[in-house]
Structure formats: structure tokens, C-alpha cells
């Protein structure tokens, strides 16, 4: 899998673009399996870097979504309510929320595509 270089990544397996669009990585969707439910806050909600802001559920398990950065939600992908499987089909094209980033330095400090790929392969090597 090659990870798009137009965005940053977290060790919690989320991605975020420069304009604050957030999703989960292909590695995360693969690990979760069939995604059947996405539970998200409403537009206007404040999210805090490193803190859970929503959940993704597969048939088997519930997983928290962690905020890659702090900010205010400006968009929530409503289509995931009825078609959460989009995330399985193309995790890097299926955005989950959009956020107005509070501090761009937080975003810049996240992992590059190459670093994330390395992190994933090291994790698999455990």
C-alpha cells in the first residue's frame, strides 16, 4: 500500500490534509474489517488533539477516533451514516470530518506518509 503524500498521519491511524480534512488510513480499515457504523459529533463541536471525538464500529468491535489536531468541526460526512462501507472501499478518499485547525504547528508535527508507512511495518513486526 502506498500512502498519499498530500497529507499527514497519526500513530492512531488517522490522516489529515492541510485544509483539515480527516479520515482513517487504509491500514486501519483493513484491521477493523467491515465497518458498519460511524458515530460522530455535530458541526461546531470542539475536538482536542489526542482525545477521542467519535467512534467507528466494525461487526466485531468499537474503536475510538482520535483527533489528530485541536479545532472546531466545520463538516461531518453525513453519507457515512447510511454507507459506512465507503471507508472500507477507499479509506483515503472517504473523509470523516473536516476541522478548522487551531494551531497549524500541531498538524505539521504529525507523521509524513513515509514515516507512517515505516511505523505500520514496525508495528506489524512486533
Amino acid at each position, binding site marked *: 500500500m502506498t500512502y498519499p503524500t498530500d497529507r499527514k498521519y497519526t500513530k*492512531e491511524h488517522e490522516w489529515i490534509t492541510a485544509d483539515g480534512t480527516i479520515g482513517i488510513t487504509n491500514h486501519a480499515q483493513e484491521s477493523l*474489517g467491515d465497518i458498519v457504523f460511524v458515530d460522530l459529533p455535530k458541526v461546531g463541536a470542539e475536538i482536542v488533539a489526542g482525545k477521542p471525538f467519535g467512534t467507528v464500529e466494525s461487526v466485531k468491535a468499537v474503536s475510538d477516533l482520535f483527533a489528530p489536531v485541536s479545532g472546531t468541526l466545520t463538516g461531518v460526512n453525513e453519507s457515512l451514516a447510511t454507507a459506512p462501507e465507503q471507508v472500507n472501499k477507499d479509506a483515503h478518499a472517504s473523509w470523516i470530518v473536516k476541522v478548522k485547525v487551531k494551531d497549524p504547528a500541531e498538524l505539521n508535527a504529525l507523521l509524513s506518509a513515509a514515516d507512517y508507512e515505516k511505523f505500520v511495518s514496525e508495528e506489524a513486526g512486533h
Partner: protein
Amino acid sequence: MSVAEAIPVVSKPVRKTALNAVHRQMGAKMVEFNGWDMPVEYPASIGCGIAAEHIAVRTGVGIFDVSHMGDIRLAGREALAAVQHISMNDASRLAIGQAQYSALLYPQGTFVDDVIVHRLGEDEYLLVINAGTREKDFNWVRDNTRQFDCKVEHLSDDFTQIAIQGPKGVDVLQQLTDADLSAVKFYWVTRGTVCGLKDVLIGRTGYTAEDGFEIYIPSDEETSARVWYEILAAGKKFGAVPCGLGARNTLRLEGKLPLYGHEISDTINVWEAGLDRFCKMDKPDFIGRAALETAKAGGLKKTLVGLEMVDRGIARDGYKVLDEGGREIGYVTSGSPAPFLKKNIALAYVPPAQAAVGTTVKVEIRGRGVKAQVVPTPFYKRPKKP
């Protein structure tokens, strides 16, 4: 659990079935289950995943490695009396070659484990038991049958157990055996040559609420892998897929088949679990009977019901059940999306007053009461053959 935690990391020593390397080779996602390193699902790249595996069993056929299940053999002059003493169903009703669902009970009328009792010969019985309770069960059976002229053997490690489940299971297995499977009724066993192996025990049993078979073959890795791949190859034209524990759980949940540690345990009794029809109070005395008599007279404090989520949300194991006013009244024992029924379902213990079909309750999901309704169970019943 975070997304990161969903990614399995197996670090401590766990037990492995003889097919462990095969599962890994096929790219299965592995998880620890009751101390066993088991496949939870096979990869999307070969058309699998919990939902796809589940649907395959409902509509075609799925193949499971269930070698983690344990086996106890009781044989000897007083084998029947021994089985009768330690189990709640009436084993005297079994013909040779017949099997029954039953349970081992504590004197309190609660569960040591649920089991399938197979009568293999005149004075020979095989109990198939759960993976997580193997040692506990064997010790229990051995210690409580000492007074009988009957040999008790723990055969769990002797078998690789493969389940071939689904309406097409019979067609798949028939290609690989000389035994006439059409003559084997549900919950009966036979013996035959399977994949060239002589005298293999074949049971028309399973844990999927579907028709299907379970075979018991020698547990060496080479034989196990050969038979596994031969079954998958024979099943190809029927769309057979390998299935993991994820689908096994959702299949059994749709069929309301209990899982030890969830619907049944050492603190739940037979009446609460609703397993009355497998408990024969009119047979000779058995461990747990007296307590069950008392419990029956005292009335139920909680009872197992089926729930269907009305509002958006998925009930999960351990979540609280609330009444409409938000007061805690019970808990979810198993909850999941049901891939075939396409509903979010759960089994839960609630007081009898709130157990009537149609009762509205709430399930507490991340601090929020989400509406659910008591529905008839089993959620899924397989269609009768035409």
C-alpha cells in the same frame, strides 16, 4: 478500544491448533480467544470478512477450524449412569449414533459448561466442550464420575475438528466421503472414510443455526492442512469460504445459541438462560437438580431476551439495559450487527416484568440511552427443507 488497539499484536504464548500456519498463510486476521490464537476473519482479498463469511454460511457453505473445542470420552459399563449424573439432558434417550445438546451443572444449578453429548457405542459417550473450559470441564467430569465403572479420557489434543456449515455443506462433504450423508439426520453421527482417512467421526452438528457437519480427524499438521485444503477445493464450486470466529459468533447469535461466559456462566442458572427444554427434571437425579427445583419455586429474577435496536446504535457485550425511564434493569450478554438479518441485535438479561415481546427498553451506548425492543427469538431460524 482505539483503532490502534484493534490491530492484534500476539505477544504472550498462546495455544495453537494444527491449522495455525494454514490460517496465517491464508492471511487470516488472528486474535486471542480463550487462550487460543485463532482466525477471526479471512482477508477481503480472497472474498472474506465477517459479513461475507456469515452470508456464505446462510446461503452456501463455510469452513471453520474448531479444533480449539475439547473432547472428553466416557466409556465403560456405567458410562450412561456417569453421563446422566453430570449432565442435565436425558442421555438414556440417545440411540447409538445420536447426539444431544446438554450442560454440565454445578450443585447450584449454574453452568460448568454447555456440551454436546454423542453416544458413540453401547457404553461409549463423547462430550464436546468449549475451548476456554477444557481443563475445568475435564477435571469436573473426572472428579464427579469416580463412583462409576467408567473410564474418562481427555481427547482434546487428539483431534483436528473442522466444521463444514451451511445448506451446501452436505454437497461439499459428500464429495470427500463414502459415508451416505443423506442418511445422517441433524444431531446424529456416523463414521466413514474422509479424504482417504479411515473411520472418521462425522457429526451433523454445528454452532451456526444452519445445517452442517463437524468432522474429527487426526491432529497432526500435515493431515490437518491436507484435509482443510481438500475441503476448500471441493467447496469451490459451491462458493465455499474459510470462516473465522467472528462469523461463528454472529451466526450463533442470530440463532440464539448460548456462549459460555456470556449467556451462560457459573452465576446463571438453567431457567434464567431459558434452556428448560434441554433440562430433564424427570430423569434420575443429577448434579444441580435440587437447586434448580428450589430456584423454580422461587421464581425468576432475570431472564434472557432478544433485543433489536430501534434507533441508531449497536449494543455490545456488557452494555447496560435501561427501562424507558432510564433506570438500569439489566445487561447485554452478546450484541452485534447481524449480517444476514441486517439488523442490530442483542441478547440481554432483564427482569421477567420487562421481558415480554414488544417491550421498549434502552441500551446505554457511550452514555446515551438508545431505544431497543424485546423481540421473539431465535432471531434467525433456518428454513425447513422443502
